[in-house]
């Protein structure tokens, strides 16, 4: 009978364990030697990806993915969005009127964003050309802002290439000839917000005395609303990761006009653009976005669809595994069955 054992078991007839002899009263026998930790005997779960283990996991994941995917798709499809590019249309115009039709009511908060295309805020040299200490009010700090650090002896505020190239197109949205009320409240993160120098009792410009404006700017920092705490400046300085990006510009002020209390009503709108920011030369483009937001943010079907399709694929794989398993017939019961000779 022994001869018929498989080779590797036959060899192991010599399996003896003289190994686990324990001598507690020996010098080596200090109690911590016996810990299962040191003896590599920690209780372990051996996750073997066999069908009985993998299949339930696979199906659970599949259904969970589909569930989340449905929720995300619903969220995304509830978002209303209008988007247009205008650089081509407005070429050569400083004031540019674009007609926009909003087919149905945009309910809830409505956001107005500008969009830049092929604009590399993430270029390393550009990216690092800033001084966060200056932006917190220490105006003399300009290190790292070169070449936009100093104008003669005066520090440029805000210094650096990013600030210098701040986006300066502005928009006016007219609904039936009436300007839509806008606000910039709530469009900034509390963290990392810039701060003006400490209040010295005078006007804002007195706090910025002895500083120069960035070369590309038309007016000094103190003449724009809130100085360094300006929402547009702060949003611009929060670098976009990718070359095509949107930045929030304004939000519908629903408190001012009861017509907009529930959001943006359907109808024809005119966007009046002050067209100042050049992007044509480097094949860039500019755009404008009117959108609502769901819990998942702006319109983005990707995550929902991705969840759905991964869920679907997982279920298909589950089925394939079931078939594979059935074909090879490796059920626990069968494995447990020594079998009367198959």
């Amino acid at each position, binding site marked *: *009978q022994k001869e*018929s054992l*498989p080779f*590797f*078991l036959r*060899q*192991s007839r*010599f399996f*003896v*364990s*003289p*190994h686990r002899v324990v001598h507690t009263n*020996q010098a*080596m026998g200090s109690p911590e*030697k016996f810990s299962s930790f*040191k*003896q*590599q*005997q920690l209780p*372990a779960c*051996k*996750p*073997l*990806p066999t*069908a009985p283990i993998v299949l339930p996991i696979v199906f659970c*994941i599949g259904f969970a*993915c589909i569930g989340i995917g449905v929720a*995300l798709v619903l*969220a995304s499809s509830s978002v209303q969005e209008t988007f247009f590019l205008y650089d081509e249309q407005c070429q050569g115009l400083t004031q540019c009127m674009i007609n926009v039709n909003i087919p149905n009511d945009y309910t809830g908060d409505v*956001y107005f964003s500008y969009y830049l295309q092929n*604009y*590399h805020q*993430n*270029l*390393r040299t*550009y*990216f690092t050309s800033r*001084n*966060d*200490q200056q932006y917190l009010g220490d105006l003399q700090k300009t290190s790292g802002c070169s070449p936009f650090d100093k104008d003669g002896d005066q520090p440029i505020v805000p210094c650096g290439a990013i600030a210098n190239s701040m986006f300066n197109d502005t928009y006016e949205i007219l609904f039936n000839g009436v300007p839509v009320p806008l606000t910039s409240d709530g*469009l900034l*993160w509390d963290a*990392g917000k810039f701060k003006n120098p400490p209040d010295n009792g005078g006007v804002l410009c007195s706090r910025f005395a002895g500083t120069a404006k960035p070369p590309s700017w038309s007016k000094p920092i103190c003449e724009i609303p809130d100085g360094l705490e300006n929402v547009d400046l702060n949003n611009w300085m*929060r670098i*976009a*990761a*990718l*070359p095509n990006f*949107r*930045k929030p510009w304004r*939000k519908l002020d629903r408190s001012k006009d009861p017509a907009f209390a529930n959001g943006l009503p359907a109808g024809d709108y005119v966007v009046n653009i002050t067209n100042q920011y050049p992007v044509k030369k*480097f094949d860039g483009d500019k755009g404008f976005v009117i959108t609502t*937001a769901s*819990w*998942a*943010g702006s319109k983005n079907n*990707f*995550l929902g669809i991705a969840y759905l399709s*991964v869920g679907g694929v997982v279920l298909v794989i589950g089925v394939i595994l079931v078939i594979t398993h059935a074909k090879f017939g490796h059920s626990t019961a069968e494995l447990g069955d*020594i079998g009367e000779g198959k």
Partner: protein
Amino acid sequence: MPHHLATATRHINVNSTHQPVKFCNNVISTCKYSVFSFLPRFLIEQFLRYNNIFFLCIAALQQIPDVSPTGRYTTLFPFCIILLISALKEIFEDLKRRTSDKKVNNFPTQILDKGEWKDALWKDVKVGEILWVENDHLFPADLLLISSSEQQGMAYIETSNLDGETNLKIKQSLPTTSHLTSLDSIGPFTAYIECEHPNRHVNEFSGNLHIEGQEPKHFGIDQLLLRGARLKNTEWICGVVIYTGHDAKILLNSKVAPLKQSNVDIMTNRRILFLFFVLVSLAIVSAIGAELYNRSYIPEAWYISWILADGAGFLWNVLTFFILYNNLIPISLQVTLELVRFFQASFINNDLGMYHADSDSCAVARTSNLNEELGQVKFVMSDKTGTLTQNIMKWKRCSVGGVSYGDSESDQFADMRLVDDYKKTPDSAHGNAIRELLTMMAACHTIVPEHKEGELLYQGSSPDEGALVRGAAAMGVVFHTRQPQRVVLNMLGKDESIEVLDVIDFTSDRKRMSVVVRSEDGKIKLYTKGADTVIFDRVGEASKATMNTLKEHLEEYASFGYRTLCFAMKEIPQDRYAKWSADFKQATLKIDERQKAIDACAEEIESDLDLVGATAIEDKLQEFVPETIQALMAADIRVWMLTGDKRETAINIAHSCALCTHHTELMIVDKHTYDETYDKLMRFADRAKQYEVEGREFAMVIDGKSLVHALTGEARVHFGELAMRCKSVVCCRMSPMQKAEVVEMVRGLADHVVLAVGDGANDVAMIQAAHVGVGISGEEGLQAASASDYAIAQFHFLRRLLLLHGAWNFDRSVKVILYSFYKNITLYIIELWFAIFSAWSGQTIFERWTIGMFNIMFTALPPIALGLFDRPVDEAQMLRFPALYCSFQKRAFSLAQFCMWIGMAILHSLMLFFLTYAILEEGVVWAHGRDGGWLMLGNCCYSFVVATVCLKALLECDSWTWPVIVSCLGSIGAWLVVLIAYSWVFPLGRFTIGADMAGMAWIMMTSLAGFWLPLIFVPLTTLLWDLVIKSFFTITHPTPREMAVLYQKRHATGGFERLTRYGTIYSSGVLDLFRGRTRISTDDEFPPGSEPIPIEALTRGRRSSSSMQLAEEARHGFAFSQEEHGPISQHDMVRNADSTQPKPSGR
């Protein structure tokens, strides 16, 4: 006394505190560092490693302003932490060495001080002092033997530590000093010694002893007791210290332990080099991308075109990207591996399974960088004496008058039938034969009896004779007195004096020893004992009848691996003896061709003998040796036995330790010339091929002389080829250097890992030459153990060391390495994908410090946990199925594995980046419409990478224990905690650290759709494919490992059927072992704690007759150890010994 400074010889004043020059002290040190040398030596050692130089360069490059995309200190800081960890480890290891040196240096000894014996420590021993060494103690330094407790200043020493020879060596003091056996005479003894300067020659030594008022006396190697040797069978000796400490011959012969590098390390370095080239080419490709942007886009982009004025050139960009991608080479790999190995080694050290209770010692991993090499061993080169055998001889069986007495089960011969049969019929032929056999056992030898505290002890250089004399004594024939002319036996209660007339020495050529005696009744008898072949040729017609039964018995004994001796005798008529005796005297006095004359004379008398019987002596094996060797061979490891012993002994042991069985064809190479050796090798190589076809087992036996030829020129090729085919090889009569040469040769044959295991100083060269050296620490053998990489107490621990620790550690270390590559590539290649979107400007996607911390914080623990706690197969399974060992080797660190992991890493990084990209493309993932910006993308992607990489570790881990789970999930948690903490840092005083990170935790964690859902979704999607592919293969093509785990899981209910059926599907050669399967019945067959199967069961059985002509001698089991050509011949030994004289006390 003359003082010659700086002369060609060493001058020593004996028993004096003043020496002409200052000699080195007896302290030995194996430490690597001192307090002052630590820093420079450590740094030099660290910067000999390529990757450390690499990171130093990166750290230096980062200091150039504006070139680094990740700031100045992001490499320097983690690099310093890593160096610090390495330094701590080095210090710890050196402290351990210090402790072990201290132990040796503090061994006790006794020194003559102002006419008194004073207890002292080894480290206090100085040149010129007189030492007192007791029986069974090691010599603390090289000593000149002055006197001893034995006659004429003789001393027996055991040099197996030095040269591996098992028989005791005899040393003898100069006649002018041998009388100094009492404190009164030694105390005032002074002399002046002139001798050679310390040198490495162990077999040569000369000097002169000047005693005032006497002629100078020359002394040589026969008077030198070497450090490392042990005093045996001698109560005490006195000796003058000649060479101390590092001047001692043994220390001069010990080479500095070579730094061994494991194969895995070498492979890893190659892979790192490969990654380095990948890195350089990526940097160049990226710089080309940057160049394109510099030419087309940037000149037009007014907001940034000013940077062109700075003129960042192509090379500058290459540098930038080089720094950006530098982390493709895992900075933490070295230190992770070091830590993992360090703790793996401590697992080895703490393993109770390798704890030897008798010596109260555990295994010691002396180097930790070879842990995984233990899992790749293909050749085990083992020493014999002290490693496989205990060097204890026990008389087990005897055959006399056609009856075989004794059994193999009892510890030593205890069959009282032998005496009973004699007592029943003392006068019959059978009774007489028994009487003669016992008499011969008790009288025909060179042993000297010694009465000590009422006990009878036997001293002698031949362990075989010792066993026989003790055996005879146990049977009631007690040899108790030896005088120059006679021996006195107590024959079953009655003293019987036997006059010893002549002794014809044992030599390896004669293979026999004879004694001519005159018994009490006045009859002159010749007693001869020796090899069966030799004896059978010389027996007379009368004995032919008993010869055949005796042959059968001998065959049986040999099949147990016993050492057999044949006994024969004859009565010599008075007149014939008188004539022969005169001839023999003359022959012994001859100067030319003395040996030849003696042999001829002996030949004349040793003829027409009456066969008396035969004895079988067991050379006791160490515990579980056959089991271990079987297990190793089952793991497809070739086992070689390299021994200094004679061929017969070696083959005997090879049989008894299951290295070869009775089915094994032995191919013996024992030629003396190159051409003969070459021919023989050629013929055996052909025969080996034929055997392979026929599926027969075969083994090669080669001796030292043939080996010299076999290792030269073209023969080397054939020898190598033959050696590769043999499952086992026995090399006998090997010098220590030859052992090392054989190891070197096998290393050179192919890329196989060679492990050498030995216990004595003679094995040191071999241990150092092998990839992995294992020393048996046991009771003695400090030399081998301290030169080894791993020291174990017993040979059988080797099985656990290799099959368990080796296989595990190999699997683990490979995982650690591959995983480290994987995680770094996964994270850092994302920078490349991001470069496509950042105008190849070198902008990082991640925050600079998080990049640096990735390796030392957020993914530091999972590889360590993998390396320490992963158990691919449970301990019991590993040991039970040795075949798993070689299947693990095949899961090796292959190029395919590496490519698969790298491919996985690239795939994962693509998925991680582009999934994140798609999710965060619009930037607004909150209900309040704010924008997350650059780090929203970077940090989210980073989080997903950390989660994926940590979960991948779990997926790759074969056994989830709490440390693994905690370290993997904990690492993800650690990142989230650090993220929150880091978001609060800015603004911190005058520093701008973390300006980019300000508030990021809040920004990220308030987005369900942008962070939390993807945190589940992205790693899941990325790893799903791994899981699916893995489970697909597990279901259809389970690996042996998985089968073993399955087997274990089903073991309670059987289920072996499936396990074996998989084997047919799986075509790999490994799984050939699963063929020819039937089911196993129950657990009963493998009770985990079952008793070992007796050695006999392994080796018993009929031999195949076809192999007879191949190994004629081996089959007979003859083996005998005796000191030959020593300073005192066996004849003189017998003539000089007088056990009735009291021994001097020396005190």
